[in-house]
């Protein structure tokens, strides 16, 4: 069992005033309850983020719960289609599919205790809970019911209109919505807040590792360290373009020797993952320098070691909610080449912490350029780590959620 992380532990990585500010801010909402609801406890960025938030909110004196909705396979097939449609893919929805979505939300609303002062519902899967919930009075707000916020983690900038129209009828019932980027905002009659997601520098995925720990992990994973490693960590999802990364690697490989590691695993709520993985395996066939690693959701230590062993981090997404693997890579002092999508453009300062690219060829060119300029790559890595320290750590994220609670509860 890893040791519990406490707020004061973060003084090792952020200025001490940051922690003092968090505690004083939390004083304004101390004792006011907070509930998070999402669709999975393991796999994917949201579950990972919540597992870190919950104990820290508790330590700040904010009673917090994290509940997960349950549903049959059909429900998750529908929500995956909804997820893809909101990210712009054409998807077909039948009346039965939408009815199944609503029915599962109704069942979960009856099962869960949704009576906190602030309720944050994550992503489309549980968005309709609000329809089936009587909103009990929230102590001290002077208004009926707790304050409900819909937190959208996905790139909803160009949604399929039918899917968005379906979801919008629920979202408009909320007291506000949180999006990760301004371009994800919609025409809504409710406040739309901007909060970037974050990484936890003390988590197993981001904590410092010794060279021996890194070497041992790579040995176990069967990844030799005899040549530069290009790494993309993401679940096997078409929007992450893993086949595009393989194609870019092949262009690089014509000139420069290197290895490519694609590491990830399907989340519980992603039925499409196995199909994409099969396509990736087929694309990689016959090249011993391509390593496809299907890791369990809890392989944070292995991901950490891979990122530290890599020469260049790639995140060549074509659609992206935010793409926190970029911040993870930057935190390890690595230059990052990312797709020009979603939050990747927010994290990469062009030419300073890495590069954004829009094609296989662009990706290949930047990889080659960095392989040939290791001093520049190292400098970019340094800038990246400092930029993450300022903008993308969990302490900033916690502070903004507390600020939201202060605002919602007029505390």
């Amino acid at each position, binding site marked *: 069992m890893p040791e519990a992380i406490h707020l004061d532990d973060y003084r090792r990585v952020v*200025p001490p*005033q940051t922690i003092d500010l968090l505690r*004083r*801010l939390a004083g304004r909402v101390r004792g006011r309850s907070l509930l998070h609801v999402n669709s999975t406890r393991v796999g994917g960025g949201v579950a990972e983020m919540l597992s870190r938030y919950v104990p820290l909110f508790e330590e700040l004196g904010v009673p917090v719960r994290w509940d997960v909705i349950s549903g049959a396979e059909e429900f998750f097939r529908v929500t995956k289609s909804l997820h893809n449609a909101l990210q712009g893919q054409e998807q077909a929805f039948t009346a039965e599919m939408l009815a199944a979505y609503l029915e599962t939300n109704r069942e979960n609303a009856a099962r869960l205790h949704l009576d906190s002062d602030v309720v944050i519902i994550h992503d489309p899967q549980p968005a309709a809970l609000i329809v089936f919930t009587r909103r009990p009075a929230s102590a001290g707000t002077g208004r009926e019911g707790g304050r409900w916020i819909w937190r959208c983690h996905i790139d909803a900038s160009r949604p399929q209109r039918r899917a968005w129209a379906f979801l919008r009828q629920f979202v408009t019932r909320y007291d506000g919505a949180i999006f990760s980027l301004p371009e994800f*905002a919609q025409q809504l009659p409710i406040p739309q807040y*901007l909060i970037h997601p974050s990484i936890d520098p003390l988590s197993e995925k981001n904590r410092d590792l010794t060279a021996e720990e890194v070497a041992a992990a790579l040995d176990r994973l069967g990844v030799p360290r005899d040549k530069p490693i290009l790494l993309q960590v993401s679940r096997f999802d078409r929007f992450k373009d893993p086949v595009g990364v393989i194609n870019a690697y092949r262009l690089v490989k014509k000139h420069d020797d290197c290895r490519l590691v694609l590491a990830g695993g399907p989340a519980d709520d992603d039925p499409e993952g196995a199909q994409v993985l099969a396509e990736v395996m087929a694309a990689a066939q016959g090249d011993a320098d391509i390593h496809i690693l299907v890791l369990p959701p809890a392989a944070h230590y292995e991901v950490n070691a891979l990122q530290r062993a890599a020469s260049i981090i790639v995140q060549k997404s074509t659609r992206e909610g935010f793409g926190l693997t970029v911040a993870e890579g930057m935190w390890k002092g690595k230059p990052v080449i990312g797709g020009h999508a979603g939050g990747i453009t927010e994290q990469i300062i062009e030419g300073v912490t890495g590069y954004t690219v829009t094609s296989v060829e662009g990706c290949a060119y930047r990889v080659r350029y960095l392989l040939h300029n290791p001093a520049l790559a190292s400098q970019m890595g340094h800038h990246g780590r400092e*930029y993450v320290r*300022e*903008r993308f750590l969990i302490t900033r994220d916690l502070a903004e959620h507390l600020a939201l609670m202060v605002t919602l509860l007029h505390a």
Partner: protein
Amino acid sequence: MSSEGAVQPFEFVACLELREMLGRVAWDERELLAGIEDAPADSLYYHTRSYFLRSRYLSALYPNDFATWAAIQVRDRVLGERLAVVDPFDFGDVELLRADLISVIDAHLGSRGTVPRVDTGEPFHFMRSTLIDVPATARATTLEEFRDGLARVDGSAIYYHFYEPARRRPEADPLRWLDALGRHDVADRVRALHPSMSSLDGMRAELLAICDQALGVHGA
């Protein structure tokens, strides 16, 4: 002459901002102009000042979002430069700032046959922010204590006290406090600083230098 000790203590206040998207975008410079005409005051503050709070790392061309957007996304460097030189700290009233921004864009558009617009770049997203103030642990009853507070408070406190005269609490005005303390010399020198030309760290260094000199600290 100093009357230190005879005035209310100065309480340092840190802050953070909760950012909100207004759901309005501009794809060309005329839409930017119209957006600035309609934007709430909090939006103008956000786009012309809070860069200093949210980005201590240089990540944009100018600290003025309107200028950066025109220069980078529209690729109209001339308008970007004309907007960048508008110093929000020159205006005591946000409506005067709004009028100046409008007049710069209007004059620029008047000199061109077409309205420059985003071609391959991103539209401008109008935002606003709410400042949430949080008491810092520092307070001062003397200039020495004021100097010590400046040295150790979070950077956001420097922002709150010196970059947000309109949105901070009235009692958080350091110039008023310095005047009440009888240190008009220090207040006048602080008044002469140009926040828009400094980062928060740079501003803190300038403030400390002024205090050190006033206190006769060796080497100041």
